[in-house]
Each structure stands twice: as C-alpha cells, then as structure tokens.
C-alpha cells in the first residue's frame, strides 16, 4: 500500500526560492509552470520542505475540530511524546482536561502500547538471525520501501501505536458511531489516518496537527484537571534505551544519521547489531517538528510522571502487527529497457552544466536529464545553458 502525501502547497505564498526543492531528501519536489509539484510516489512526508519554507507555502494540515460533529462519541489519542512534555501529573491532568474541553468524550494516552511495541521488537530481534529494523516512524518505512528495497525484509512490520489504539476503541464502542482523532506531533503522522489525507485503510479517522490545535488547547489550560496516571514502562517508550537490550541494539536519530545507518547496513557493515531503531527526528518523537521540548528536561519529566505506580496494560499479540506497510513498487519495464534509458539520461547529462542549481525546477542535473528523456522538460529549460548560449550569439 502506498500512502498519499500530506504536504499542501499554496501558490500565493510561494516566492519560488527553490529551497524546498533542494532540501527534499527523496527528490519528490519539482517546479512546473511556476508552481511546486509534490510527487506523491516519491514523497515520504518527512516534513523537511515544511521547515525549509519560510513563507508557509508548504504546510501539512490535519483535520479541523468541526469534524467532531460527525460522530456520536469522540476519542482523542495523545502521543507519548506530548505527555513527556508535562512536568508532573498535575500538568498532564491539566493538559488532558484542556484537550477534552475541545469537545472530546474521552482522551487517552498510547504510552503502554508504545512500550509494548518496543518490547515486542526486542523479542523478535533476539529470535532472528539477521539484523532487524524497527521503526515506529512512517518516514523510515517509506524511505526503505522506496529507496532501499534490499532492506525490505529487515523491517519489523509492527503496527503504529495510534492504529492499535484506534482498533481497540472501535471494538470497545462497537455499538456507537465512534470517531478516533489522533493528535500528531509531526507531519509524518498526519498520514496515519483516513482524513485529511485520504488513506482509507487506516483505522484512525482523523489526524489533528498539534501546530493547528495547540493554540486552542492553551486557551483551555488551567480550567480543571483530569485524573491521569501512567505506567513507568509506558513513559519510558520515549527513550528506547531504557527498554531495549543495550548490547546489540543501535539507535540512530536525525535524518542524516538514519540515512547513513541505512546505507551502511546495505553494505553489510552493521551485521553485529540485532536490532536498529531509527528515528528521523532528533531525540526520536520528542523531537517532532510540532513539539518544543528537549531531551534534558524530558528525562526529568519521565521520572516525575512515573512516580505513582500504575500497572502497565498488555495487549493481544496478533493485534500488534500491520499489513499497512508499503510494498516495493514494481517497474514493468525490462532490465534492458531501463539500462537503455539510463544511458540516454547519461548522454543528456553530459550536455548539462552539472551545477545542480535547481533553476530549471528540478533538484539536480541528473533529474533534469531524466525529465528531458521523459519529455517533461526541454534542454532549453536549463537556465545556465541559455545564458551561456546567449553570451555566444
């Protein structure tokens, strides 16, 4: 299954600076007829373009609270990363109450599910002969299926915690028209719901972007308190180092480090590890783009929030797996045809200046050459060549 991109483009805000095109790690962006085109086949929803754009031309929006009216009973899922931003249980209770006041019937946390997923990955890895990759980030799963097919077999196909929670809630309230809203701390997680991005096979109904909703939550703060408690194990899911076997586990955070880990494992250089946790955001999900905390204070918060003992909940094993991961995309063309195309691209690439300036609207000269071969662009579209030729005449 291939998910749709959550990145939205606003033409009026775009100043055509090409920063987003250059920043995209999967070359999913290009410019055509003076507007940015997001290639949904390549986009992994990492949100790098959103941060790069200073004019809010590219944004990832969640659903709005107006969608609450469509359901009889509404549940909001609060990500573990947001909970770990609360200094103590009082503050967490305040936060839960403020979210509830937005119009939800129930506000629940997914910390226990997160922790159980980490443990499950641990068990699977200890039974495996090869290195496994556990990522609870859709970005990593997309990158591997789109760019690093040879690692596809290494991915542990555990489901996302919000999905497991959504299924549980739907089973619990089977007699009601229940709507599950997932509060998202980053762009990538917005895709993990039916709306607004239109990924119908997810069990969550709506994704709410924390960036959109947080001002509203803030207004409701200090109006009351919910009674909340978390298990220590659940809270520690924010820091996998506290849950996993330390000896043969590799944890990488940050997009660049994750990319190099993926590259190195393709060369078979990381075979001494049994399990790799990959987090494209710094400090894992607590470094989500819509959050503000840092790992120093969060370690403190986790200890403080877990002071009151609460037994962790455990869930059924088969419920933890997913069939929603991307499949590798098969190209129907033969190997020979593709090599011919490759040689054609190279021939055109030799004519291009090789500055990778993106002025033509493509990220690199190679992609420009590809677009020329596919008749999407013309050699005349190269700005540098036209300047050089203009100088000659």
């Amino acid at each position: 299954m291939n998910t749709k991109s959550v990145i939205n483009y606003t033409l009026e805000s775009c100043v055509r600076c090409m920063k987003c095109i250059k920043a995209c790690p999967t070359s999913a962006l290009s410019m055509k007829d003076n507007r940015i085109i997001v290639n949904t086949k390549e986009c992994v929803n990492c949100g790098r373009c959103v941060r790069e754009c200073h004019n809010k031309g590219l944004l990832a929006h969640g659903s709005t609270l107006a969608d609450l009216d469509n359901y009889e009973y509404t549940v909001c899922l609060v990500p573990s990363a947001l909970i770990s931003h609360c200094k103590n249980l009082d503050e967490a209770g305040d936060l839960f109450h403020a979210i509830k006041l937005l119009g939800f019937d129930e506000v629940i946390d997914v910390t226990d599910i997160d922790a159980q997923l980490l443990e499950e990955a641990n068990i699977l890895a200890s039974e495996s002969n090869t290195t496994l990759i556990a990522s609870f980030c859709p970005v990593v799963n997309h990158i591997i299926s789109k760019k690093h097919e040879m690692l596809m077999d290494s991915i542990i196909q555990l489901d996302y915690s919000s999905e497991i929670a959504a299924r549980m809630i739907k089973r619990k309230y089977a007699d009601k028209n229940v709507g599950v809203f997932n509060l998202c701390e980053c762009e990538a997680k917005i895709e993990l719901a039916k709306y607004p991005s239109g990924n119908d096979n997810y069990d969550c109904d709506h994704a709410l972007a924390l960036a959109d909703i947080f001002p509203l939550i803030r207004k409701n703060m200090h109006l009351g308190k919910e009674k909340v408690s978390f298990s220590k194990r659940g809270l520690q899911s924010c820091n996998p180092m506290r849950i996993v076997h330390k000896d043969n586990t590799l944890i990488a955070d940050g997009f660049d480090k994750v990319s190099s880990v993926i590259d190195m494992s393709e060369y078979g250089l990381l075979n001494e590890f049994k399990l790799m946790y990959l987090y494209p955001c710094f400090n894992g999900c607590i470094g989500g783009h819509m959050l503000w905390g840092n790992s120093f204070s969060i370690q403190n918060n986790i200890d403080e929030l877990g002071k009151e003992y609460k037994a962790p909940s455990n869930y059924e094993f088969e419920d933890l797996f997913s069939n929603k991961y991307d499949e590798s995309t098969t190209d129907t063309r033969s190997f020979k045809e593709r090599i011919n195309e490759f040689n054609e691209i190279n021939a055109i690439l030799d004519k291009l200046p090789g500055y990778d300036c993106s002025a033509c609207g493509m990220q690199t000269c190679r992609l420009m050459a590809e677009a020329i071969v596919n008749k999407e662009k013309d050699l005349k579209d190269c700005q540098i060549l036209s300047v050089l030729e203009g100088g000659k005449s």
Partner: protein
Amino acid sequence: MSVILHKEFEVIKDDYIGAGRASSEIKSILGSVGIPPKIMRNVAVASYEAEINMVIHATGGIITLDVTDDGVIKLVFHDNGPGIPDIKKALTPGFSTANEKARSLGFGAGMGLPNIRRVTDEFDIQSSEDGTIINLTFYVNE
C-alpha cells in the same frame, strides 16, 4: 552478449573519508536500472569491501563496472600494488595485514576477501608485485 553499461571509478589511496564513494555510486546506478534487491545487496557488500581494500592496502586504482544485455554484472578492481603475497592466507577469515591507522578507523577485521567471495557468483583474484586484479561476476537472471 554485448556491454550495454560501462562505468569507471577512480579510487584514491588512504582516502578514508571518501572511501565508499564508488560503491555508493555503483549501488545507485544499479538501483536505478532495477537490479533485484537480493543481487543488489551482494553487489553492494562486495564492491564496498573491495573498494575499502584498495584504499587501505593498495596505492589506489580503478574500478570498472560492466553490465551486459544478457544480465551479467562484472566488476573489476584493478590496483597498482603492492600485491598480496599469499592469496590463500588472505582468503582465510580473520587474517588481516591492515595497519594501525586503518584498524583505529574500524577497518581491517580480516573479513574483506572472504566476504567478497561469499556473495559473488564468480570470484577471481590475481596478484603480483605490480598490483592486484579482482574480477567479480554476478548473474541477474538466475
């Protein structure tokens, strides 16, 4: 059988930072022409190990990639010396002559050549004082 893709890469001696660049390019070329992932993985492992060998043991050299229309990938690693005195020994897992600098950077575990031989369909090595030539062959359609 004719060669439909030909590329050459230069490898520089003691360039530990740039080491792996050629393999990375080989990987991306073969990835873009749709080689099955399993074979890709073998090519990636072999080319990386062989390239690193050229950086730490030899005085640099040339890597040649040839793909023929009947689905044979040939990789030739040609360096300019000093050669491997005892090839049989070099093919023993764990045997290494890497210097301190290479070891301190995490190279030289003595698994290079054995690993290369393990993942290739055909493996041929010739060595003299003037240099070493490693010929690797992978079959795409098997």
